[in-house]
């Protein structure tokens, strides 16, 4: 077994193990952390496939941002674990159906011999100093410029919609206006009085 296949099996083992724990761990926070671990192992597998940009983007976007927010939400939940497991058997049938579809899909991929997938030519090996990121950027901004921009606009619409749905401004909210605060001058707030230092004693 070569070193790279050893690394592949190591990452694949961690990935499968942590993915299994995502659905079997009792504490939802643990589930999220196992999901993070499976993302990290998947990124390791992608590095093996020489897709370093995708691998690092996976860690950066999913592990570094999306899962952090996910973890936030899950930590805030007040979860009764016993009640969470109540509907387990009700969901079993649809879950088995979904799992069956996935097994069939994986069989198509893994059993490529029988479906003629191996007739696809092998991708040619790249030179040592090859920059995956540069190629990706070049293709993304020239050949696929319109689909890329379209996806960006869809995301923008989603962002604005999400904010519009959740933003409820209360009438009694007090807030500060920083430009007003910065614009304050001494004369607006303080009045300097010219007073004699001491009154003359009346002699009473």
């Amino acid at each position: 077994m070569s070193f790279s296949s050893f690394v592949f099996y190591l990452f694949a083992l961690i990935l499968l193990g942590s993915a299994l724990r995502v659905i079997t761990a009792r504490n939802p926070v643990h589930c999220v952390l196992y999901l993070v671990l499976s993302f990290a192992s998947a990124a390791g597998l992608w590095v093996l496939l020489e897709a370093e940009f995708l691998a690092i983007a996976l860690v950066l976007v999913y592990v570094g941002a999306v899962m952090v927010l996910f973890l936030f939400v899950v930590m805030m939940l007040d979860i009764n674990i016993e009640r969470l497991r109540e509907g387990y058997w009700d969901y079993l049938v649809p879950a088995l159906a979904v799992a069956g579809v996935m097994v069939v899909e994986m069989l198509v991929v893994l059993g490529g011999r029988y479906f003629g997938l191996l007739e696809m030519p092998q991708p040619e090996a790249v030179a040592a100093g090859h920059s995956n990121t540069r190629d990706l950027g070049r293709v993304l901004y020239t050949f696929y410029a319109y689909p890329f921009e379209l996806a960006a606009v869809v995301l923008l619409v989603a962002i604005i919609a999400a904010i519009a749905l959740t933003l409820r401004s209360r009438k009694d909210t007090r807030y500060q206006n920083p430009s007003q605060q910065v614009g304050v001058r001494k004369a607006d707030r303080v009045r300097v009085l010219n007073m004699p230092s001491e009154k003359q004693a009346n002699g009473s």
Partner: protein
Amino acid sequence: MLQWIPQALGPLWPAALALLKIIAIALPLVVAVAYLTLLERKVIGYMQIRIGPNRVGPGGLLQPFADSLKLMFKEIIIPSGADAVLFLLAPIIMIASAMAAWAVIPFSAEMVLADINAGLLYILAMTSMGVYGVIIAGWASNSKYAFLGALRSAAQIVAYEIAMGFALVGVLMVSGSLNLSDIVRHQAGNFGALGWNWIPLFPLFVVYIISMVAETNRAPFDVAEGESEIVAGFHVEYSGMAFALFFLAEYMNMILVSTLCALMFLGGWLSPLPFLPDGLVWLLAKVFLVLILFLWFRATFPRYRYDQIMRLGWKILIPVTLVWIVVIGLWMQTPFWLWGGAT
């Protein structure tokens, strides 16, 4: 004369060599962290007209060792109701992500452990893992103060990561590479310090300086551990070596973002005057200057209020970076661009 070592180790030699290089980076780093804590106390002491630590060793020079020995021999207390595994995992995540990022930092033209093409992305990915240490520490401690600190810190890190990322996008546009060595080489020229990125990218440079302070949770952005409000934030329940790991990771991250600042904007190992030779010493000098900035900020500015931090991050820094990225994009297409063509 040392030829026998590679022969004796045989196929293990590359791994052993990599290990030696890692030690050659990690060991000076830990020493630097130790003396950064002393420097901080000394500098802030002098700024406040005090002397600072001066009892252990000549002029207080052995103070960091006394501190670390004390922390090593303290008991690690695991609070009741805490999630013990995660409680102990959190400081490990912090220190691991802080150290892993150092793998791609080039110290001079030849001295780099892993010269990878997506180096900058790798650093961003590794530093964004550090926030897990904070959140897990806050949650696993089973303490309200720790949890509040973790929430504050995570929101702050996520917010300022965007501004920091955009500031670095400007650097990428100018140098046309994600490789840190290439970014530094692109700043080389006949005009020394004038050819570095900090002049064309000055607004981004300022944004980077601000967001690097916020990103490391240092004063004046240290609401995450605001001692007057929430005691010590996410690491309030930690003691002994577990606390020391948080401390180590915080200072290591400070040195890391300072080094990044030196590489991205201040020309890395290049010398500021064209007739002087380039070398590691320039990088160290620049990192030292940026670190002094950290200490200076801490000694001079009062702590920001939480809503002010969020306003600064989202409403000021991010728009500034977006505008300047567009300006740079247009500027680079004109003949008035003097900082080398992007390939």
